[in-house]
């Protein structure tokens, strides 16, 4: 029992504000942050060619990382306005371009080559490149819109998402001379760049986890050796390799380079010459490569949409007991759940894209990872439910859909490793904020007064009934009051969960994988809930078509998700014996250790000891 955790001083700067709130004077204190935030405008001119101006970026000043703050139960209410990134002209030109692409992509008569050609012609392969270099200077929000259409072709969708990510990295990492030499080749789309980061899991205890290495010879040329997971290798390859044993750097392998051999999903390099991306630092590289997670989320969502479409096509002409099959409520609810997932994921993706595009120097890696994990986790389950409807009638198509979904959900990395990334980043941030408190909690006898304070301060949390002090409802449409309070509940529980975990494990929290998984899942749901509420509220306020449906979707989603978060955090609070982790890991361990002498965990159900 962690007596220590129960005592804490709660610092609330807005005690007086609460008083106003009680008397419904909330408008007095409504802080319209957008009005007060300074707008940072960056304009770049290319004086060599004055006809083409570089795109203007309208970024607001830097904000605190949104989701990392949620780990300490701090909520940036400004973001409940839902980001609006594109202006009128940009939206129009974007829509125009998307029309062109979607005409080809939605036409079943067009071949893969046609689709590739339209992308080349519309300069989609050069989307992230700046206008002055004959690109589109597309930001993340626009990229997502393009990708949604392109994802209709599964292969092409994956290829282009890798290509975009790699282009961003190359623009940052290569010198101007190096970049200008290959930029046209890259922009043309003939030789797309693919990413090669992941490696096989080590097969011996003497193998390191990451083995591809790079070394420089006497003439200053870098050579890389190793094996990577890589699905497409028909053009450039961006390879991550280590040098000087512990440093990491990305290298660009040109098409047709020596020593490259491909074997199924694996590609190996034997002293392959490569160009290093020297200008980019590790953390910046991580941020850019992390974008592939956001694109993976879009691809995942589009797969789910395709499955919904397939089920609709299947259901519509069929009948059951003389009535249309579509009237079965089980089918309706199954499709409805999938639609809910799609809506939620879409909201979260554009919300995150808004964070990345709308603020200076954004720190949204965690949000990006969450988007991916949300749809990868729920998408697979929803997909299985959906494909249950056509079941055996559309065997081949179902198999294809499911396989694609599985592929994209585990593409590049597993759910667990992303969860670990989310949770450890959150805990890292929370640890900084709460380190003093945790130290006192872990040494209760040294700080008796603190302990008593903590007991009193945490009494509501212990009862699983925190006081709702964030007043999120004030920043949303009034009819979303109840869902917003549910979100608020979840947000307020996060700090308690982090505190519990850190108090229980101390620094060893990094090894409490099952607990961290729960924390990451809870945080992921909170991001999606926030995004959904913000989007629905905005849609209703500005009077979008079908916005009342959005309100219902949002309310439904939050209601469902709140229970999930509640359960997850309750399990964290309970600890390994009550949430049965201790036992499940034990069973798993036994099964993993089974061998000839102990082939099974238990005897057969018909086994007897005596007769």
């Amino acid at each position: 029992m962690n007596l220590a955790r129960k005592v804490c001083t709660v610092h609330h700067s807005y005690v007086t504000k609460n008083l106003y709130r009680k008397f419904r004077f909330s408008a007095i204190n409504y802080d319209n942050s957008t009005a007060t935030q300074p707008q940072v405008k960056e304009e770049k001119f290319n004086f060599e060619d004055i006809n083409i101006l570089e795109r203007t970026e309208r970024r607001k000043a830097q904000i605190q990382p949104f989701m990392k703050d949620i780990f300490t139960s701090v909520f940036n209410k400004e973001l409940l306005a839902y980001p609006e990134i594109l202006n009128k002209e940009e939206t129009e030109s974007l829509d125009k371009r998307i029309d062109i692409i979607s005409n080809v992509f939605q036409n079943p008569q067009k071949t893969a080559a046609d689709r590739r050609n339209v992308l080349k012609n519309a300069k989609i392969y050069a989307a992230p490149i700046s206008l002055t270099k004959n690109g589109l200077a597309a930001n993340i929000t626009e990229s997502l819109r393009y990708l949604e259409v392109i994802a209709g072709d599964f292969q092409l969708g994956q290829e282009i998402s890798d290509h975009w990510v790699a282009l961003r990295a190359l623009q940052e990492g290569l010198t101007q001379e190096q970049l200008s030499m290959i930029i046209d080749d890259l922009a043309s789309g003939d030789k797309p760049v693919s990413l090669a980061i992941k490696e096989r899991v080590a097969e011996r205890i003497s193998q390191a986890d990451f083995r591809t290495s790079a070394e420089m010879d006497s003439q200053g040329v870098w050579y890389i050796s190793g094996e990577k997971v890589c699905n497409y290798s028909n053009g450039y390859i961006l390879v991550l390799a280590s040098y000087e044993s512990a440093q990491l750097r990305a290298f660009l392998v040109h098409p047709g380079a020596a020593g490259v051999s491909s074997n199924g999903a694996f590609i190996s390099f034997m002293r392959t010459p490569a160009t290093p991306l020297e200008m980019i630092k590790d953390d910046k590289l991580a941020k850019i490569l992390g974008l592939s997670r956001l694109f993976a989320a879009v691809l995942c969502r589009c797969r789910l949409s395709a499955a919904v479409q397939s089920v609709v096509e299947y259901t519509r002409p069929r009948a059951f007991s003389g009535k249309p099959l579509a009237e079965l409520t089980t089918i309706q609810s199954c499709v409805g759940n999938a639609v809910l997932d799609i809506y939620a994921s879409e909201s979260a993706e554009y919300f995150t894209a808004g964070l990345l595009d709308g603020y200076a120097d954004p720190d949204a890696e965690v949000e990006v990872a969450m988007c991916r994990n949300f749809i990868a986790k729920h998408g697979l389950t929803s997909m299985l439910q959906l494909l249950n409807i056509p079941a055996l009638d559309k065997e081949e198509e179902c198999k294809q859909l499911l396989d694609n979904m599985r592929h994209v959900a585990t593409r590049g990395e597993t759910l667990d490793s992303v969860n670990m990334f989310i949770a450890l980043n959150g805990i890292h941030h929370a640890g900084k904020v709460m380190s003093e408190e945790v130290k006192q909690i872990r040494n209760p006898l040294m700080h008796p007064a603190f302990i008593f304070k903590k007991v009193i301060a945490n009494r509501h949390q212990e009862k699983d009934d925190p006081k709702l002090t964030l007043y999120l409802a004030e920043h949303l449409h009034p009819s979303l009051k109840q869902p917003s309070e549910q979100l608020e509940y979840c947000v307020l529980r996060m700090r308690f969960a982090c505190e519990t975990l850190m108090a229980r494990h101390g620094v060893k929290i990094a090894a409490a994988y099952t607990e961290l998984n729960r924390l990451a899942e809870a945080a992921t749901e909170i991001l999606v809930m926030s995004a959904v509420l913000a989007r629905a509220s905005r849609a209703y306020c500005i009077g979008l078509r079908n916005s009342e449906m959005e309100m219902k979707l949002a309310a439904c989603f939050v209601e469902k998700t709140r229970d999930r978060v509640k359960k997850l955090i309750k399990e964290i609070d309970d600890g390994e014996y009550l949430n049965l982790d201790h036992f499940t890991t034990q069973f798993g361990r036994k099964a993993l250790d089974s061998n000839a002498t102990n082939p099974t965990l238990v005897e057969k159900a018909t086994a007897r000891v005596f007769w």
Partner: protein
Amino acid sequence: MANKILGHFLRSRPSMMMFKRWESSEPEKRVTIHDPFYSQPQKNKETYLEVVKMFEGRDNRRRGHVEFIYAALARMKEFGVQKDLEVYKALVEVLPKGKFIPKNIFQAEFMHYPKQQQCAVDLLEQMEDNKVMPDTEMEQMLLNIFGARGIPLRKFWRMMYWMPKFRNLSPWYLPEQLPNDTTELAKLAIQRITSVDPDTKIEIWQTEEIEASLDKTWVVSAQSEAQKILLAEQPTDDPLVVKGPFNIYLREQVVNYFLLIGKIRPEIKDNTDPDDVSNIEKPRGIPGLIGTTTLPAVRQTVHEQDDGTIVSVCATGTSSRDSLLSWIRLLEKYGNPQLSSIPVIFTLTAPPSEMAIQETQPAIKDSQEKEESRI
């Protein structure tokens, strides 16, 4: 005095009771004692059951059945049937049905036919000692003989509560019948020791494969992939040590085994404050990049214990030093080439008694092998 008599009674071998009974008859009428068990030419289950049948058929009234059962119980080991439920059932069958069932509460309360009940309880006790689990048929037999209120029934029920609980308590499974072949037995023993690492592979080699070997016997050797790597990474200037013999018991059987032990890597030293969470390590965040580019040089595996890194385990047919030397050579031959350059020290604490003959063998001549036997 009473204690003395009781002690004498308890100490006396049950088999003797039968003879005592004849002895107590008039001395001049003494006849040669006929021990039906003794006269059997072959001592096995069939002949044992034959004797029991013979006793049953000899006399309708089955006089002396308690003495007979005690005598039979004492001879079980000799016939090798002490673990056979069928034999115990045959002995219970000797007792007459119905006669010993109490008819009223006084009989039930004051132990009706105490000698017979005690005899049945002793029989059950012997079953328990030999870990023979009775079955429901036996319950029925005891019910027919002593009734539901008999002491043997209570003993039976208690046994049926506890014995299934203890029967599979050991996490290491052993077959009902232990193999008679020593190689197989050694394999079972080594399997049990190496169950810490499920990846372990157990090999059975013959020392004939090594030409220089003197002892022609078998070697059951176990090594996992992790151990091979640990062995390959041993420093070549530090000798490996063969330690043993250690004992491992498989029920009543004992197997000697030996360990090949190397140097250990340093313990993980973590001087950070476990309460300071202000800077918890976070991953780099590059999708697909997990783990590290280098390996830690500290203790990681289960094979690295405080007294050394166990790189292999074996049991040999003779447990002699020569067979162990052959084992080292065989290890070298099958996937551990490193062994050719690492010296090996033999620290056999005391050779097992049956190895006395091998002690006279000439010392093994090998420049790289040093022998230090502390006898």
